[in-house]
Every structure is written in structure tokens, then in C-alpha cells.
């Protein structure tokens, strides 16, 4: 029980209990829409993905707005022609925000996929084999967990100097940000390892690799998707932070670059709130959406949190640790 407390991300706390994993997952699938917070959170994230997918086309082709075109309409407040006003270049802020959503989400997704793949590999192998392998991998995981991530990313980005564009930074973030996920996946694998179907497969002489891939991995999917979502948000924040510092590629349109340029070109002094508030809000709302989903999952797993009378001893600091993870 106590071990569960320390686990940073959420769903494994259910399945860590052993045999109930699959059942709870089914329940989750049914229950998720029932939880308003999770539903709102997922809805917001879905909206972002939608904007990233079709937004640039809508804005550029249907509305005729360009994120990069320079016009004489400098620093215009929001109007019908420019829903979110214009920048110091006379570029449309709304178009930048929408195109930036795609860039930021793509970069975040690349980082998230890399870190999730790493975390699955390390967590799965460690949890499945146990023993020395687990000790070594576990020590490395814990080391990466306590080492501050952002300084490491900044150092690497400092050497790279924008070489390779935003995706190199994404790679770096992915390579450094896997520890949280690895830990949760390890715990879950541990619980699955001694389950009947795994033991059966072993008795049948299945290779370890196959058992991991066919029997264990599918059961990890809920955890994986939760990690993926969290690290997407975390990575977007990290990339935006780097770009805001001026360690990004100034030639791309993204939320971080918008904020960087807004600050550089004295948007604050001009009172051009429409320039630097939207990207910040975009990031915050995305982060909050992830927080809501976590919150919702917490409530599902810990009925006490949503006001039910049932007593549960489950630890609940997860939502806060998850929220913190999103900050770094």
C-alpha cells in the first residue's frame, strides 16, 4: 500500500492491487465520461488536437489569415479582421496562435513519444525481470527522477544551438524526461508479472520477450496513454520555456516564440495584451486540462474524493505530483 503512495502517475495505483487491474480498466472506460472533471479535461485536449490538425488550414485557407505576413496594421487590438489583433510586424496573432498550436503540439508529441517509449522499455524490463536488472534500471530511474530536468535540457540545448530545429530539443526532452513514466510502468509490470495469465504463458514455454510484448504490454496501455498525455504537456511547457529564453529557433511559429518576440518587442509596454496573453493562456489551459484529467482519475480511483462515504486509504498526492511534473 505504501509503495503506491510514492508512484507519481495515476492509473497503476488501481492495477497495482493485482488482479483487479483489467476490471477497473473496464470500469474506467465506462466511468470516465461520468466524471465531469476528466471529461472536461479530455475534451479540452481533444479540442487542442483538433485545432492542431485542421486549424492552420482553416485559418490560412478559409479565413485568409497568415501567421507570417507583414502588414502595415501594426499592433492592432482585436477586431473582426484580426480576432486577436496583430503583432509589432502587423502579423495576425490568431493565425500565429493556431499555427503555433500545431508546432507546439507536434514538438510536444515527438518528445512525449520518445520519453514514453523509453519509459515503457525501462519500466517493463525492470519490472518483468526483477533482480539485478531491476536494481540497476531502478537506480538509474530514481537518479533521473531527482536530478533536475530543466537544467539538463538547457545544457544540451546550449550545445546544440538550435541545430536541427525544434525537434532536436524535443529529442533532448524526450531523452531526459522518461523517469516518471518508467517508475509507474515498473510498478504495474510487477503486479502483472505474478498474475495467472503471465505464469501460464511462462509454463507454456513462451519466450520472455513474447510474454512482455503480448501479455504484459497490452495491460499497460492505460498507464501508457496517461504517461503519454502528461509528458506531452510537460514537454510543451519545457520547449516553450526554452524558446521563451531565446534558446529556440526564431524562424518557427510556436507559443514559446510568440512569447519571446512579444517580450523582445516590448508588447508589455505597448499594452498589447492580445499579443502575449493568448499564448500563455493556451499553455495554461492545456496544462490545466491535463491536471483535470488527473484529478478526475483520482476521483474515480478514490471515491472519497468525490464525496462518497466509502472509506479508502488510497494516497492522493498524485494529482499534485503530476501537476508538478508538468511544471518542470
Amino acid at each position: 500500500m505504501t509503495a503506491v503512495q510514492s508512484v507519481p502517475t495515476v492509473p497503476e495505483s488501481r492495477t497495482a492491487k493485482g488482479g483487479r487491474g483489467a476490471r477497473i480498466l473496464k470500469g474506467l472506460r465506462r466511468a470516465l465520461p461520468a466524471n465531469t472533471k476528466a471529461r472536461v479535461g479530455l475534451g479540452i485536449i481533444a479540442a487542442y488536437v483538433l485545432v492542431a490538425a485542421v486549424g492552420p488550414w482553416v485559418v490560412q485557407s478559409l479565413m485568409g489569415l497568415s501567421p507570417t505576413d507583414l502588414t502595415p496594421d501594426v499592433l492592432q487590438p482585436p477586431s473582426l479582421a484580426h480576432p486577436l489583433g496583430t503583432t509589432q510586424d502587423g502579423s495576425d496573432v490568431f493565425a500565429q496562435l493556431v499555427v503555433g498550436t500545431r508546432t507546439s503540439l507536434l514538438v510536444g508529441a515527438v518528445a512525449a513519444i520518445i520519453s514514453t517509449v523509453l519509459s515503457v522499455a525501462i519500466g517493463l524490463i525492470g519490472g518483468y525481470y526483477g533482480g539485478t536488472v531491476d536494481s540497476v534500471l531502478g537506480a538509474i530511474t530514481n537518479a533521473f527522477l531527482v536530478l533536475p530536468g530543466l537544467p539538463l535540457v538547457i545544457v544540451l540545448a546550449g550545445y546544440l544551438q538550435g541545430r536541427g530545429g525544434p525537434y532536436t530539443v524535443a529529442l533532448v526532452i524526450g531523452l531526459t524526461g522518461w523517469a516518471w513514466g518508467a517508475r509507474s510502468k515498473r510498478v504495474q509490470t510487477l503486479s502483472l508479472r505474478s498474475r495467472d495469465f503471465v505464469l501460464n504463458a511462462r509454463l507454456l514455454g513462451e519466450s520472455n520477450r513474447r510474454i512482455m510484448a503480448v501479455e504484459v504490454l497490452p495491460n499497460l496501455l492505460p498507464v501508457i496513454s496517461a504517461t503519454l498525455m502528461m509528458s506531452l504537456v510537460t514537454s510543451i511547457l519545457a520547449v516553450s520555456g526554452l524558446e521563451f529564453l531565446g534558446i529556440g529557433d526564431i524562424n518557427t511559429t510556436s507559443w514559446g516564440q510568440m512569447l519571446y518576440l512579444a517580450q523582445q518587442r516590448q508588447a508589455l509596454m505597448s499594452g498589447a495584451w492580445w499579443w502575449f496573453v493568448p499564448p500563455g493562456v493556451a499553455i495554461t489551459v492545456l496544462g490545466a486540462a491535463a491536471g483535470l484529467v488527473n484529478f478526475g482519475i483520482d476521483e474515480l480511483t478514490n471515491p472519497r474524493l468525490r464525496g462518497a462515504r466509502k472509506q479508502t486509504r488510497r494516497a492522493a498526492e498524485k494529482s499534485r505530483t503530476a501537476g508538478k511534473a508538468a511544471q518542470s
Partner: protein
Amino acid sequence: MTATTLAPGGPVQAAGKAAGRRGGRRSRILLRRIGFYLGTAAVAITLNFVIPRLMPGDPASVILTKMGQKEQISPATEASIRALFGMPDTSLWQQYLDYLGQLAHLDFGTSITYFPTPVSTVISQGLPWTLGLVTLTTVLAFLLGTGLGILAGSRPGSRFDSVMAPLATFLGSMPYFWVATMMLLLLSVSVPVFPSQNGYDLALEPGLTPEFIGSVITYGTLPAITIIVSSVGGWLLGMRNMMITTVAEDYVSLAEAKGLSRWRVLLSYAARNAMLPQVASLAISIGSVVGGSLLAEAVFQYPGVGFLFYQAVINLDYPLMQALFLAISLSVLCANFIADSVYVFLDPRTREDA
């Protein structure tokens, strides 16, 4: 699935381990913990060695060229830079030994940005600022967040709770640098209450004078507010959820039934136990608070290590950059260790055994 099979001594599980295994001793836990942190420090030191050697080009030559433009490089300087950043002709193992030797002497080479000041001097000037700022704000945010969390969690669904919980989620999601920018706008530009940059009034001679201390407080306020605003939400939510869970425990109901005042029950029974995971989280989250404060420092040009770090990166000051990475990592490890040890002493399960 008992906790005993868990991780090999992570910062937090070890506590669970102790609980699971009846014979766990506090000292043993602490020793284990020390071992883990020493191991992690070794990882940080090794990463610091590996990174410049993995990077494209030859950072050592780049650094030496840059320095050469400013001043004649002494053989000693060149040797220390080579030891830190790579010497193509020597074996990697020998390089590693040389590098460890450098560290043992606290010789991190010379900063390019602050040429010709040694890196160790530059960092020792910046570190107190960040340590002060981060420690103070983390403690304040922790107390504030935990306090508000107790209040929110003691009556889930109350008006206070239904405002606080979403607000905390939102605050916790705001990026530090954006909060910093907004603070700058609101409290330095629109209503010029606080200075917008630096750590103290540059016209003053640093010293323990009332003016100087006053200016340090004034100049530190905006960075401090930024960090508190961005990190308080996490503590609040964590404590709230813990409280909600704990308040429903039997012993709390029992205490209530005994007729103890609600307030007393909340604080001495529920909150006290709900605190434990909070302290555990403190250890884990220090790294991210430091990361966030680095960005805030860059915005406010606060003279701590975050701003130095930013300087080092934009000026391609590799010696300063690497040393700062090491200094920050090791400081975070120390802070982690302290928080972890506090946890061990607070945890009744380890107390019983000791």
C-alpha cells in the same frame, strides 16, 4: 504485491519498504538513502563529464579560442579546460580521472562571460541568491498551500473548496516564465511598485546595512511572488486530497466521537497524517521548483544561478554552463536528501521501530 519487492531504494519507496519489513531501522533507512544519493551524485558528475564529449565539434578548442581572444591563456588554464572538456589524445578513463581531480580541487576553469573570473567564484556569488530565494519561497508556498489544502480538504465540496481546487489546478498549470512576465507587467510596469530587474539596488554597496537588506527584499519580491504563485497550487491540491482521504479514516471518526473539537481533530489527527505524503512530495518536487525558478530569474535578471545559467547558455560559456549544471544538480540532491530525512523522522512507522 508487497512493497518489499519494490525499487532499490528510491527516495520515497524506501519508507514503504521499512514499513513492509518489520525489522527496518531508521538508521538503516538513512544509510540506504545516503547510498542512493551518493550514487545519484555520481550519475550527475558522470553526465557532466560525458555531455561535452558527446557534443559535435570540440568544445575544449572552442573555449580556448574564445579565451585566447581576450587574454593570453596560461598553460594552467589550458590544462584545466582540457581536463574538463576533453583531451582527444588521452584515454577516456584517464580523462575521467583528471576530471575528478579537477572537481576535487573545485577547479571548473574560467568563465568566458565573466572573463577572467574563475567559474567557482562566479557560482559562489550566484548560489546564495538562488538558495535564499528558492528555500524561502518553497517553504512559504509549502506552508501556504498545505494550510489552504487542510482548509479545503476538511470540508470537500464547500464553497471554499469548490473555488480553491480549480483555482489551484489553474495556477499550477501556469508556466513560471509567463507568470513572471505577467508579474512584471502588473507590478512593475502598469503599477510600478517593484523594480523590474536585478537583485538589489546597484547604487548601493553590498553589505549588512539596512538599506541594502531592504533593497534585497524589495528586489526579491517579484521573483518570490512568481515562484509562490506557480507552485502553491500543487501543495494545495495534494494536501486537500490527502485530507479528504484521511478525514474519513476510522481514528478520525473515533476522535470526533470522543467529543474532541473538530479543529483539534483536524490538526492533530487528520492533518498530521496527511502531512506525510506532502513531505515526501517536497523531496520530489524540489527539482522542478528549481527548474522553474531558473526561468523566473532569467526574466527578472535576478543575480542567482538561474540567470547565470541563462547567461552561460546564450554566451556559449561552456565552462560556466557545465559547472552550473553540476552545482544545481548537487544542490537539488542535497535538498532532496534533507526533505527525505525529515520524512523518515516524521513517519511513525519508522519511529516505532527505532
